[in-house]
């Protein structure tokens, strides 16, 4: 029983606080990155930076707060597959909307 107990104590308080600090720094970084004009790289570069930070924060929450890092393969599959489906929804929707102005269906 005590063996079972220790199986689940992967994180300790300093580690939780460390992840928390990363999330707070990420939030502050998101705000200041949004105030800098990055349109000289390409229009919408600000959004790309914001999304990269958001994905990093999400990965930290999922791996350590939600304990995916120590979970079974099946949990990894569920977590990754949901984003794969999301990507299918985004890409098939956008390949329609982004091409409506060209070709036989343009008006």
């Amino acid at each position, binding site marked *: *029983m*005590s063996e*079972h*107990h220790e199986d*689940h*104590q992967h*994180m*300790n*308080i300093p580690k*939780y*606080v460390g992840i*928390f600090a990363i*999330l*707070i720094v990420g*939030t502050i970084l*998101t*705000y200041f990155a*949004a*105030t*800098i*004009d*990055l*349109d*000289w790289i*390409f*229009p*919408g570069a*600000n*959004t790309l930076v*914001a*999304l990269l*930070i*958001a994905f990093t*924060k*999400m990965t930290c*929450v*999922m791996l*350590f*707060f*939600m*304990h995916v890092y120590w*979970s*079974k393969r*099946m*949990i990894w599959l*569920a*977590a990754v*597959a*949901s*984003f794969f*489906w*999301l990507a299918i*929804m*985004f890409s098939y*929707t*956008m390949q329609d*909307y*982004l091409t409506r*102005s060209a070709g036989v269906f343009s008006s």
Partner: protein
Amino acid sequence: MSAHYSDKFVYHEPGLQHQFEDMGQQEESVSIGMWMFLAQEIMFFGGLFTAYLVFRSKYPMAFAAGSNHLDAFWGGLNTIVLIVSSLTMALTVYYAQKGNRNMQVILILLTMFFGMVFLGVKAIEYTDKFNHGIVPVAGLNRKVKAAPNAEHEVAHEKPCYEVEHGGAEVEHEYVNPHGEFLWTDCSLAKLAQDHKPNSYLTEAERIGYYSNGEIDANKFRDKVRIFFWIYFIMTGLHALHMIVGLGLMTWLLWTAWKGNYNGEYYMPVEMSGLYWHFVDIVWIFLFPLLYLLGRHFMH
């Protein structure tokens, strides 16, 4: 009969449901069930993120204009409040695994407190939008009285047959008599057109903002209204998830108070935690995608 039963008897953890072989199998089943639920929640919000993607790719400048009206301070504060509540939730699971009842109760109360702070800030923001007349549904906004110096213009705009009868009621004129969506600022469309050589208007914008070759304030307003529809639906659905989460926390508080959880049986805490962290993750994306779109145009 009883001899047969006692032959088969093995130690049985108090938290084990009868359909499972052991705690390990029960925990695995519960986790997979919860993650399937979260996967469908991702698709649930995913539909709205898709709507956001479609309309933002069509009208980026209108979205930036709408976003600049949101208060990034409140949005950022709420992000931090939710991250703190995620930390207290993660620590609740930690202490549930330790079987520390008092710390569980304290941390669940803290999590609920931060959840309610989040909803309070949201209420402040929604009130501000209502007062500024930018709730997208006609009739929901505060009616704004026309400025005194604008009264004459309002009177002149009236058809002649109405002025004859109701000319004395000019001081009661509202700029949005039915609580319509109020938006007059189309400066970002102008900015993209004139001063931002690296920015561009999309094809949809070149059609959607203009009439007779001029930027049309009303057409721009309609595109901003799309942004606010998406803003209210997404943050509203997120707030609904927060309310459900608070209900979950109330139940968790009661069961933790009774001392139900320990190193062998803590899955209800862990699963409620997964839900809470999921709601946090949605907000991690909503904050930059709704509040920070046009900040870099503001100087």
